[in-house]
C-alpha cells in the first residue's frame, strides 16, 4: 500500500464527514427492529415471563442463550487485538479498532440479558453489594454474582482499551474539522497534543492494558461457563466448560470480526486497508479455533458417553439422536464440517468471500451450541417424570433479533464517530514509521509522521 498520509486521512475520515442514503436506510431499519425488541421487553414486564416460552423444567432458554452468545462474540476484539498487540503482529493494525468496538457493543448487549430474563427486573440492583440498614448482602457464592462483577470489569476494561488509542485520531479529526465537530472532538480528545510525553504514556498504557485485558477476558468467559458448570445438572456439571467456553468464545468472536470487517470494507470502501492478507491471517486463527472447538466437543461428548451416568445419558442421547439431534448436527456442520475445509485450503482462505462464507455458519453454529448446552440439559434433568420441552414465543424471538439489530446499529453509529481504522497506528505500521514518536509537536498534533 503506497498512499500518502493525506490520502489515508481522507479515505479513513470520509465516513465521519459524509454518509450515504444507504447508511440512513440501514440505520432506520435496524432502529425499527431495536424498537420492536424494546416493546417486546416492556410487554413481557407488563404480563410477566408467562408470555415467553419458558416453562417447568426449562427455566432458561433464549435469553440466557443470547447472553452467552454475545459474551462469546465480545471476545472478538479485545482478546484478539490484545494478543496481536502483545506479540506485535504488524498486520493487526487496521483490524484492532473494529475488533475492540465489537467487544464493547456485544458486551453491553450481553449485559442486558440477565436483566431481561429476570422475573422481577425492577429489583435487579439487589445484585449490587451495598451496605443497608437491613444488613443484607448479595450471595457471594452465586455464580450469577461473579458474572455481574466479571462482566462489569470486562466492560470497563474494554471501553478503556477502545478509547485509549482513539485519542490521537480524535485529535486528528479535531484539527481537521471546523464547527461543532471541532468542539465535540476537542472535548473527547481530552487535550491530546501529541507531545512525546503523551505518545510515551499512550504506548505504556496500551502495553499495560493489552497484558491486563487478556486474563480478564479469559476469566469472564470462564465464569460465564461456571453459571452452568457449578450447578449439578446433567450436561452442565463438567470441568471442561471453562476452556471449552473460552475457545468457543474466541471462535465465534473471530468469525464475527471477519464478517464485520468484510461489511465495513464494502460499505466504507476500505479495500486498500482491509486487504485479503488480514482475512487470510484471521482465517488461519479461525481454523485453529475450529479444530480446537471440535476437539472440545468431541472430548466432552466422549467422556459423557463413556461415563454412562444415567442422569446424563438422557441428555446425551436427546442431542445425538433425540429431539435435539437436528440442531446438534446442524451445529457440527456449521462449526466444523463447513468452515474447516474452506479455511484449510489456502487458495480459498485468502479469498475474502470464502472466509466470510466460512464465518457466517460459525456464528449460527455457535448460537446453536449455546442453545444446545442450556435447553436439552434442562429438558432432560434427572427425573423422567418431569421431562419437558421448549418452544420460543414471539417475544423471545423478537428480542433476539432486536439484539442483532442493536449490534448493527451501534456499529453503524460507531463508524460515524470513530475512524473505523486506527489511523495513527496504521501510519506507524507504514515504512519509516519508526520516527513517528519523535515527531515535532506541531506536526504530531496533526498526527502525521513526517513524509521523508
Amino acid at each position, binding site marked *: 500500500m503506497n498512499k500518502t498520509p493525506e490520502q489515508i486521512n481522507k479515505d479513513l475520515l470520509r465516513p465521519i464527514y459524509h454518509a450515504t442514503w444507504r447508511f440512513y436506510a440501514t440505520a432506520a431499519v435496524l432502529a425499527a427492529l431495536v424498537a420492536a425488541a424494546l416493546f417486546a421487553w416492556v410487554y413481557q414486564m407488563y*404480563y410477566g415471563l*408467562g408470555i415467553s416460552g419458558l416453562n417447568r423444567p426449562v427455566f432458561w432458554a433464549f435469553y440466557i442463550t443470547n447472553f452467552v452468545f454475545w459474551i462469546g462474540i465480545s471476545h472478538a476484539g479485545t482478546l484478539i487485538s490484545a494478543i496481536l498487540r502483545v506479540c506485535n503482529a504488524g498486520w493487526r493494525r487496521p483490524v484492532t479498532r473494529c475488533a475492540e468496538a465489537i467487544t464493547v457493543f456485544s458486551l453491553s448487549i450481553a449485559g442486558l440479558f440477565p436483566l431481561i430474563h429476570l422475573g422481577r427486573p425492577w429489583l435487579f440492583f439487589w445484585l449490587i453489594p451495598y451496605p443497608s440498614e437491613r444488613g443484607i448482602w448479595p450471595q457471594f457464592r452465586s455464580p450469577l454474582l461473579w458474572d455481574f462483577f466479571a462482566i462489569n470489569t470486562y466492560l470497563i476494561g474494554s471501553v478503556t482499551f477502545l478509547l485509549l488509542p482513539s485519542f490521537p485520531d480524535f485529535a486528528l479529526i479535531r484539527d481537521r474539522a471546523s464547527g461543532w465537530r471541532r468542539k465535540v472532538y476537542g472535548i473527547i480528545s481530552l487535550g491530546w497534543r501529541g507531545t512525546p510525553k503523551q505518545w510515551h504514556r499512550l504506548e505504556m498504557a496500551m502495553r499495560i492494558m493489552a497484558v491486563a485485558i487478556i486474563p480478564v477476558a479469559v476469566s469472564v468467559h470462564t465464569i460465564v461457563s461456571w453459571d452452568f458448570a457449578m450447578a449439578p445438572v446433567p450436561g452442565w456439571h463438567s470441568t471442561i466448560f471453562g476452556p471449552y467456553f473460552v475457545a468457543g468464545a474466541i471462535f465465534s468472536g473471530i468469525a464475527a470480526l471477519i464478517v464485520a470487517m468484510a461489511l465495513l470494507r464494502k460499505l466504507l470502501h476500505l479495500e486498500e486497508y482491509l486487504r485479503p492478507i488480514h482475512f487470510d491471517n484471521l482465517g488461519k486463527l479461525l481454523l485453529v479455533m475450529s479444530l480446537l472447538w471440535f476437539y472440545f466437543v468431541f472430548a466432552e461428548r466422549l467422556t459423557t458417553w463413556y461415563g454412562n451416568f*444415567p*442422569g446424563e445419558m*438422557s441428555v446425551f442421547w436427546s442431542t445425538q439422536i433425540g429431539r435435539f439431534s437436528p440442531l446438534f448436527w446442524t451445529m457440527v456442520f456449521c462449526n466444523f464440517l463447513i468452515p474447516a475445509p474452506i479455511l484449510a485450503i489456502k487458495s480459498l482462505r485468502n479469498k475474502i468471500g470464502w472466509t466470510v462464507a466460512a464465518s457466517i455458519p460459525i456464528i449460527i453454529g455457535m448460537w446453536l451450541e449455546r442453545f444446545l448446552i442450556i435447553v436439552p440439559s434442562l429438558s432432560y434433568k*434427572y*427425573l*423422567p*417424570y*418431569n*421431562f*419437558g420441552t421448549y418452544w420460543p414465543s414471539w417475544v423471545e424471538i423478537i428480542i433476539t433479533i432486536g439484539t442483532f439489530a442493536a449490534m448493527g446499529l451501534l456499529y453503524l453509529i460507531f463508524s460515524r464517530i470513530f475512524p473505523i481504522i486506527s489511523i495513527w497506528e496504521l501510519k506507524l505500521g507504514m515504512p519509516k514509521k519508526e520516527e513517528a514518536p519523535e515527531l515535532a509537536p506541531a506536526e504530531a498534533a496533526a498526527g502525521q509522521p513526517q513524509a521523508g
Partner: protein
Amino acid sequence: MDRRNFLKISAVGSATAALDACGKPERQLIRFIPEEDLIPGVAQWKPGICTQCGAGCGLQVRVMEGEAEVTRKGQLGLMSMGLAKKLEGNAAHPVNHGKLCAWGQAGLQVTYNPDRIRFPLRRSGARGSGEYQEISWEEGIKELASHLPQSKPAGKHSAVAFLTEPLSDHRSVLIEKFLAAIGAPPAVEFEFFEQTVLRRANELSFGHHQLPTVDLANTNYVLSFGADFLGTWNSPVAQSVGYGTMRQGRPGMRGKFVQVEARMSQTGANADEWVYARPGTEGLLALGIAHVILKENLRPAASGGDAGEQIDGWSKGLPDYAPEAVAKLTGVEVARIERLARELAAHPPAVVMIGGASLAQTNGLANALAANALNGLLESVGKPGGIFFTPPPPLPDLANRKEGASVAALCEGVLKGSSPVETLLVYSANPVFASPPAWRVREALEKVSYIASFGSFVDETSSLADLILPDHSYLESWVDNIPESGTMQAVASLGPPAMHPLHHTRAMPDVLLEVAQQMGGNAAKALQWKTYQDMLQAAFGSLRSHPGSITAKSADDFWSEVQEKGGWWGAGSSLSVRTATKSTVAVKASVPRFDGDAQEYSFNFLPYASQQFGDGRHANLPWMQEMPDAISTAMWSAWVEINPQTAERMGIRQGELLEVASQHGKLQAPALLAPGIAPDVVAMPVGQGHENYGRYASGRGANPIKILAPATEAETGALAWASTRVKITRVGQPGKLILFGGGVREWPLEDRRR
C-alpha cells in the same frame, strides 16, 4: 381459564384498579356489624361432615375471620365473618380417623365456587336456555307450594316425583314423610356408580342389604376383584387407613394384596400381584379358586355357610369350575389360580372384595355372590381381618325406608305417558349428565310440566328447572349422616353449620318444612318441626338412652356434646352376621353378555370413576381439575386409555385424537398409552364432558356415559355400565391431553440402600 382470557382479565383488572385509585373511601363498600365475635387471625376448629361422596367422613373445619361480600337488607356490603379455610378429618370419627381424601379437601371450593347460585331463580326464557330471573324466597316457596297437590287424591299416587342422590341421613326421612303426606311415591334415588348389585348380593349371602366394611388393618391377604377401594369405591379413606396398617402397621407382618381387573386402577397399582382377568369373569375366577380350596380340602365346604349355599354345586365341590375350565374363560393360567387358592388358604385371615366394573356386568350379581361365597369359605365373615357390616344406630326413622323407582323407570313412565309427572323436585342428582342415551332422560324431563331444583349449581339437570331454590353448601348448613360402611361401630354423625351462608341461599330441608307449613293439611301435620335443626335435635335426642360415645346428664348437654364431638358412636363393635334370606335358585357364575358384536366392536369399553371427579360431580372444582390423575398424570383433560402394543399396531400416538364409537353413540378423546390395560380393552374416566356445569367443567373433554348401552344386570336391573363394546378410529389430529408428568416407564435412577 386460557391465556387470552387471562390477558383480558388482567387488562380489566389493571383498568379497574386504576379507577379504584381515584375513588374516595366513601365510594367503597360499607361494612356491616359482624354477626359473630371473632378475633382476627385466630383459628377455630368446628366439626362437620363431608358430603363429597357417600362415605360420610367426619370433618374438622378450620374457621378464621375474614371479610366477605354479603347482602343484608338488600344492600351489598362487607362483613367480617367466620370463613372455612381448611378441611381436615375429625380425629375422633370412627370412619376416617382424622384423615381426608382429595375430594374432601377440595370441599372448600364447593362453598366458595364462583358458579354457585346465589339466590332463588325463576325461569324467564325457554327451558334449557339458562335464562333466569332473581326472585325472593317468599315468592319461590309460594310458587313451589302452588305446584304441589294439597293432599293425596283417593286411590292413586299424585303426579309428584322427587329425584335425589342417595341419602343416608334425616334429609331422606324428611323427604319421605313429605312425599307420603302429599301422596307422592317414594323418592327416586340416582347415582351413576350405584351399589345396588353388591347390596343385593350381601343381602342374599349375609342378610345385610348394605356395603361391606373390610377390616384391612388385621388381614393378611387381600384379594380384590376390581374394587377401587383405595380410590373411589365404598369408603376409601377408611379403607386406606386400614391398608396402611396392613402394609407396615404391624411389625414383622405385611399382608399381601392381589388385584384382579382388566385396567390397572389407582388401587391396582399398589398390588403385590396384579392379575388380568377378562372383564366380567371375576365370578368364575372366584369359584375356580374356591374349587381348588375345596378339592384340596384346605377348607370344609360347610364353612361357606349361606353364602356358599347360593352357589350351584357348592356342596359337590363346584365340579363345573375346575381350574382348567376357568382358565379358558378368564384368561388366568391354571397354575396361578391354584397358587392363589393355596396362598389364600394359607394366610388367614384373608379377605375377598368385589366392586367396580366386575359388578357392572350382565352377570354382576353372580360375580358378587361368588366372591361372597369365597369369603365365606375363607371363614372371613364377621371375623377380625374379614368383612363386617356396620350396625345401624338406633334411629327408628332411618330403619326401614321404602325403595323408590329407578330413573330409567321414571323416564319410561313419563315418555310412555303411563305414569306422567306434573311436578318434579330435583335434589343434587344429575341424571341428564350421568345416564345412557337410551334412557332419554332429557326428553322425559322436558315432558314434565314443572321442575323445581334445590341445586347449588346449574348443571345439565337443574338447567331444565323452572324454579331453582339454591341449597346451602354443607359447610353452611346442618348436616347429619349415618355411614353405611367403613366402621364397625354404629355411627350417627352430626355437623352444625361451620359458617354463616355466603349467599342468599336456604337449606333444602328447611325449605321443604316451610313449603309444608304453607301447604297446611297433611303435609303440615306430618312435618311439625320448625327447622331441620329441631328435627335433628329430636332424632339425636333418642340416642341418649343408648350406650355410646357420649354420656350426658341432661338432653341439652347431650345435644351440645353431640355437636362438639361431631356425632355419636355406639359402644363396642358388633360382629354379628344375620342369617341370609336365601334366594330360591342356585346361582351359576357365567360369562357376561356384551353389547355390540366382537368383530365390529372389538374393544371392551370400561368407564371408571375418575380419581378427580368421581361420577362427574367434582368437575367444577378447579383443584380437582388441576390435580394430576395418579395413573395418567392428566389435568383438565378426558382421555382414552389404550394398551401401547395395541396403539402401535393401529399406529396411534400419545395424545392423538381418537373416535370411540359404540352402537349407541360416539365421542372423541385423546389417546393415552397406558401400559396397565388389556390389549382388547379401552378405558375412560367418567366426569368430564359436561355441557353446562360452570366455568371450570363446561365444554371440557368427553362424557363416556353418553355412548353406553342401556344393558342391565340380569337379576337386579342395575345399569351394567361395563358391558359396552366399542370400535376405535383415528381422527387424525392431536387431541387436548395435558399431562403433568411424562408418560414414563422405568424408575430413572437406582436408589441405593443407605
